[in-house]
């Protein structure tokens, strides 16, 4: 069983068995109790303690005398649809710049508390991402502006409109230029409102930029096919996927949509033992790269050459002329990728994230040679996710500096922060006569403008979105606006002299534009209501044009030769977006800040990811969160950031995340990390996020800690936690990769589960038996489940310092394992961290053991077993001995070291520490107090609710009634939850099929008999060895 065993490790310190790490990992809890502030002199003394205790007793006895009078305040006029205690769901749309997701908003007593995916959307198909899940908290952000401002002073909307119209008129009469600056606008109705403004004032230009630009793709498609668009990609049809730098599962274009499609091709079963093969060429270890079957590290300066080389390899097979670039480049797996792409013509897909049109044109040429257009790529269905125009934006900055612009309206955009020349924009704004912003907070840009006309949050707005032609999506308000804000579109209409409310404006447009597009509904009213109910309205696109490739490849080749090298000796920087923080416009959201990065498992910071060899050269040793700062110099900019040694980082490159270093986003985000947008440069006329020359990085000796969770909850000596195999083995034996411990008995060897001290509870499950199956092949590690669970279960945010103290509270964590590429017999080789390790993700939550070891050690029976297979936790009974956590083999129990609510020391835990934030809490789940243990409950509140709905209707519950928050959020459908006693449930079907297949219980030999099963990871590799 063990003959082909890899070594798995979560962090370098684990691989090298660093003594400090071993010491800490043997303990479940850190010994120290830094309750008092470190800098406080003296701290609390014994005398203080006695005083406090005395006071406490007095207070308690006083409080006991009379119970407080509580009020019950009913509605005056109860809305017909709102019943206190019953959730209402509204279909809506998440649109944050160009990021799109069709959603269903769960509201309780008229306030949104949770965002779920909308299964009716053909684009996102019910998936969500961590950013979408967390966005509900941004609604309750205290930093939001509460009404319009003029010169920093409060003003009424009427007066604001008067003043602005006056100034706009003045500019128009002078013939001055006005600009509206925004990120991608997905809403056609808002664009129409902008057009009205344009009609009124003439010289008004709408400048669109994206914090992470994809303008190069637009240019390349215009030159290749005469269509200036970004096409739709369909990963579900791709059998061979080649990604060049594109983190399509994490941050590129539409990760939720792509994850849905990708996971379809990654799931294997006995009936369908086939899966896609994924090659990734990249510098940083991205979420997408960590899921690839074959990953190759390259430097950004090689990207162009690599794409050209791939083109040449395929052109050779196709008999097409070669490009005069990409010669002499030697990288692993490239020829193999070319061979397989050619073998699977029309069923492959090559994507690159480069913003250089020459590179993108070459990628287009490759896909064209392979005949992928029309199958995996659809130019007839372009996407609107990235409409930014880098050239227009560059021209805007120049116009601004030259004083050619007299009026600027920043429409929910913050270019002073997230555009490379933000500082220049900030400086030049003083020259502009009229400056307006519709942003929701006093951010870096808004604080520099004269008039602020804050927009609603998207959960308060009527709006629409058109992510793709023919795919329309509606937003409806799920709460009355909290503040005196006004929808930006309505502001534009008001300034254009159109007094229509935005709702009627939207409604009328749908009546005239979309109602005639369908024939199902005969009355507009029904059509409108149906569209609101569905959240989406989709009409098939009839276009079926065939595009011929007409790109100038020799031009592209010379551009590539000019900008890219096959071997660059200098250090190169890659600026990337993180899965949680993204562009940084939701940076003030503590859920996203505390979500561990899928790869580095770091929270609350940005940092330089460096390769192991660079660390060795500079004598840097990073143990857990302890690291050092490095001096980064790019051109004339210089700053200090902490270093993280990242296996899989290409040698000679470093990665640095965008979206940090906010100065005016709010209490949570301000001062976290450094802003690296100004490092971006321009290549070939488009914004480029890699810096290939002029970079100097020096390690300093200044110590720094980065709050990382990767080695927390490590269990040593457990080799069979991760089980995997390769596709060829799986085809031969569906149980390939099984790693099962056997025990010797007097009757010979037996399975470890054959003998038990416990009687178990299974025989008492006759009503329901809740189980979960997690497909490790589908799980991409994106972390949407972690945030979804946090929202659903009122899991507190503990903040950076407490994460460093290993006290993060997430009920579901995603363990990320690296595996070494040395052969099992190469004992020395196993000690060396792999330069390019394989990565495995494993979501771990309470395994709801049938023989739960936690239950037997609880002295007060606070954790007991239910007749439905659940391991229950009664918080009010818990006295906090923490025996249960000590005895848990999976380390999934979380202890409330502090009172995280109504506690000024945890003021970054905004969902529990201010009145506004508390509106997001789930009223069906208790907020746990200090000193009690908590853990995943399998969302027992949802189980109870689902059962009750079924009982009320006199039937048995189905999968539709009950699902956990994590399973529901998963964009890859990797987590499946249900009742195995119901043969119709998905989980019962999976367990039946995979029992003698990929299913395994984690640490089966302990015979705790968990109710969570994992489906073994299968890599689509030729051999078990890491290197091809």
């Amino acid at each position, binding site marked *: 069983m063990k003959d082909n065993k890899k070594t798995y490790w979560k962090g370098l310190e684990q691989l090298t068995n660093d003594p400090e790490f071993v010491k800490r990992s043997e303990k479940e809890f850190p010994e120290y109790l830094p309750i008092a502030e470190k800098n406080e002199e003296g701290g609390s003394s014994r005398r203080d303690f006695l005083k406090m205790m005395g006071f406490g007793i007095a207070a308690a006895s006083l409080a006991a005398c009379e119970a407080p*009078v509580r009020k*019950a305040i009913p*509605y005056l006029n*109860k809305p017909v649809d709102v*019943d206190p205690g*019953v959730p209402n769901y509204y279909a809506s749309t998440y649109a944050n710049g160009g990021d799109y997701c069709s959603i269903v908003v769960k509201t309780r007593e008229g306030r949104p508390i949770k965002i779920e995916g909308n299964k009716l959307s053909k684009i996102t198909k019910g998936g969500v991402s961590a950013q979408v899940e967390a966005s509900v908290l941004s609604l309750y952000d205290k930093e939001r502006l509460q009404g319009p401002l003029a010169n920093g002073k409060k003003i009424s909307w009427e007066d604001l409109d008067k003043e602005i119209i006056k100034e706009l008129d003045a500019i128009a009469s002078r013939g001055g230029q006005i600009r509206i600056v925004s990120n991608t606008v997905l809403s056609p109705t808002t664009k129409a409102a902008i057009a009205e403004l344009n009609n009124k004032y003439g010289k008004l230009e709408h400048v669109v930029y994206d914090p992470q630009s994809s303008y190069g793709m637009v240019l390349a498609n215009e030159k290749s096919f005469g269509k200036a668009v970004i096409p739709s990609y369909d990963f579900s049809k791709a059998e061979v996927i080649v990604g060049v730098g594109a983190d399509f599962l994490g941050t590129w274009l539409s990760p939720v949509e792509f994850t849905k499609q990708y996971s379809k091709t990654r799931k294997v079963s006995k009936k369908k033992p086939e899966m896609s093969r994924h090659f990734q060429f990249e510098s940083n270890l991205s979420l997408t790269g960590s899921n690839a079957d074959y990953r190759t590290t390259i430097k950004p300066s090689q990207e162009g050459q690599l794409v050209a080389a791939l083109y040449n390899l395929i052109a050779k097979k196709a008999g097409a002329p070669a490009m005069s670039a990409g010669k002499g480049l030697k990288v692993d797996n490239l020829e193999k990728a070319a061979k397989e792409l050619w073998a699977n013509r029309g069923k492959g897909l090559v994507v690159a994230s480069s913003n250089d049109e020459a590179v993108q044109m070459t990628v287009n040429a490759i896909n064209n040679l392979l005949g992928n257009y029309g199958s995996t790529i659809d130019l007839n269905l372009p996407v609107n996710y990235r409409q930014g125009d880098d050239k227009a934006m560059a021209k805007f900055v120049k116009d601004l500096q030259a004083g050619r612009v007299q009026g600027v309206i920043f429409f929910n955009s913050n270019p002073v922060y997230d555009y490379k020349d933000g500082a220049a924009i900030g400086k030049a704004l003083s020259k502009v006569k009229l400056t307006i912003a519709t942003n929701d907070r006093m951010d870096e840009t808004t604080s520099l403008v004269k008039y602020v006309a804050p927009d609603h949050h998207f959960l308060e707005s009527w709006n629409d979105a058109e992510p793709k032609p023919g795919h329309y999506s509606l937003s409806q308000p799920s709460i009355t606006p909290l503040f005196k804000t006004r929808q930006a579109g309505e502001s534009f209409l008001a300034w254009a002299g159109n007094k229509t409310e935005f709702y009627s404006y939207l409604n009328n447009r749908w009546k005239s534009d979309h109602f005639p597009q369908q024939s199902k509904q005969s009355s507009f009213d029904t059509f409108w209501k149906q569209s609101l109910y569905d959240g989406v309205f989709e009409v098939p696109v009839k276009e079926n044009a065939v595009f011929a490739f007409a790109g100038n490849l020799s031009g592209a080749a010379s551009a590539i030769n000019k900008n890219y090298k096959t071997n660059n000796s200098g250090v190169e920087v890659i600026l990337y977006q993180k899965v949680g923080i993204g562009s940084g416009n939701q940076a003030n959201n503590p859920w996203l800040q505390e979500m561990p990065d899928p790869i580095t498992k770091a929270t609350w910071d940005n940092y330089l990811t460096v390769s192991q060899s660079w660390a060795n050269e500079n004598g840097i040793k990073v143990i857990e969160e302890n690291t050092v700062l490095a001096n980064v110099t790019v051109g004339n900019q210089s700053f200090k950031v902490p270093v993280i040694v990242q296996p899989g980082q290409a040698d000679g490159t470093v990665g640095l995340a965008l979206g940090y270093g906010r100065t005016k986003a709010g209490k949570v985000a301000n001062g976290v990390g450094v802003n690296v947008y100004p490092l971006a440069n321009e290549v070939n006329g488009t914004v480029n996020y890699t810096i290939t020359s002029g970079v100097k990085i020096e390690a300093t000796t200044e110590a720094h800690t980065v709050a990382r969770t990767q080695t927390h909850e490590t269990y040593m000596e457990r080799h069979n936690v991760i089980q995997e195999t390769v596709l060829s083995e799986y085809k031969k034996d569906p149980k390939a990769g099984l790693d099962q411990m056997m025990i010797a008995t007097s009757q010979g060897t037996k399975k470890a589960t054959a003998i038990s001290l416990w009687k178990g509870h299974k025989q008492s499950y006759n009503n329901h038996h809740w189980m979960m199956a997690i497909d490790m092949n589908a799980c991409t590690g994106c972390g949407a489940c972690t945030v979804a669970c946090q929202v659903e279960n009122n899991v507190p945010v503990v903040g950076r310092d407490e994460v460093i103290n290993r006290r993060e509270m997430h009920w579901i964590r995603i363990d990320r394992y690296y595996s070494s590429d040395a052969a099992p017999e190469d004992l020395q080789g196993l000690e060396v961290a792999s330069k390019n390790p394989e990565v495995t993700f494993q979501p771990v939550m309470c395994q709801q053991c049938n023989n739960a070891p936690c239950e037997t050690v609880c002295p007060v029976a606070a954790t007991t077993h239910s007749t439905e297979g659940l391991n229950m936790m009664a918080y009010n*009974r818990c006295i906090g001995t923490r025996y249960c956590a000590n005895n848990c083999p999976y380390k999934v129990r979380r202890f409330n070291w502090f009172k995280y609510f109504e506690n000024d020391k945890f003021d970054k835990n905004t969902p529990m520490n201010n009145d506004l934030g508390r509106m997001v809490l789930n009223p069906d789940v208790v907020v746990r107090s200090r000193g009690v243990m908590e853990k995943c409950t399998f969302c027992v509140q949802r189980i109870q609710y689902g059962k009750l709905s079924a009982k009320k209707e006199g039937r048995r519950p189905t999968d539709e009634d009950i699902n956990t928050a994590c399973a529901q959020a998963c964009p890859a459908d990797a987590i499946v939850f249900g009742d195995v006693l119901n043969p119709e449930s998905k989980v019962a079907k999976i367990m039946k099929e995979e029992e003698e297949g990929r299913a395994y219980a984690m640490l089966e030999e302990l015979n705790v008999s968990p109710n969570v099963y994992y489906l073994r990871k299968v890599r689509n590799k030729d051999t078990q060895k890491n290197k091809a």
Partner: protein
Amino acid sequence: MSLKNSFAGYALALVLTCATLLSAGTTVFAQADQIPTDEQAISNGKALFEDNCTVCHSVHERVVGPALKQVIEENRSLPWIISFVQNSQKVIQSGDKDAVALYNEFNKTEMPSFAFSPEQITSIVAYIKHETENPPVKEVAEVPEGGTGPAVSGGTGVSSEYLTILLVVLLVVLVLILIVLALIVSVLTGYLKKDQQLEEADREIVESKFDLQKLLTNKAFLGFVVFAFTAIVLKTVIDGLFMVGIQQNYQPKQPIAFSHKIHAGQMEIDCNYCHTGVRKSKSANIPSANICMNCHTEIKKDSPEIQKIYAALENDQPIEWVRIHNLPDLAYFNHSQHVKVGEVECQTCHGPIETMDVVYQYADLTMGWCINCHRETELNTEGNDYYTKLVQLHNEHSKEPMKVVDIGGLECAKCHY
């Protein structure tokens, strides 16, 4: 309610009923022959009346519409009633004097049309007639004034009163026996003292006197007293501690003197009419002011208490009721589970709510109270497919009916999450 009062109530009821019967006999109805008096018609009429008319009408009182006993007392013709019920507007528009007068009297409130057959309407009139002739007995039980404690004896009152009487009687009997025994002892002692032939030892016993001093220094006796005292104090303290935080009988003053006794008791308004969430939500819902307005736009408009509701609506200021049942946050309770699925009566937990002028907390709402009910209550599985298989399984190995406890009704995660 005390025993005495209820007896008085019954007595009065009897007298009143007799009086009404006597007076009814003297009234003459012109259409007495047309209105059926058989029980079938009356019960049909009652059902129709309760399903359709009670929203606006009562037999004896003016509600949204007139008190319907008027039709009998004013001796309206049956065809007039039928046409008015079927389409009141038509009658009014035809210029019928009585109809127009009625219409104006009730602020031109239209009575909706009912598509009843003449027979159905006749049966309703029959019911009204029956009710008019047999007015309900006015309850004269003493109403506790605000501030005085409620009479908590409730449903179990009678039996506990009997128990008390029984105990008193027993005590009296015991005391009597004691006295008799003491008398016998003294008589016998006197007799024995006179006896000269008594032995020395026996004489000692006969002549021994009760020695209090000796008793007080007796270790066994002292020990017993100390033990009893400690035990009683301990029991009181523990009982007291268990009552900390328990608000049984909590009866705060409410901002509006709303009486459940009038609404739920006398008017017999279904609980569900106001507490709209009780069958679909975890909370039963304190009714919103607009529900009050369904009736009180017409009824008792001048009452100062009702004026408070108008004021709340005008000023857009919600009414701040004082919450009586305060379940701790850590316990999850769902009304619809108990009322819709379990079909538990409201009174099981809320007590005789229909007799309360001011609501008080009837049950102690402790976990022991919840658990005990879950142990004892049989599941309401009839016609609910959720339970079909479970009942089958249960009956295979048990002769006892399936109770809440049998499907995990005592598990922590049923209520705590």
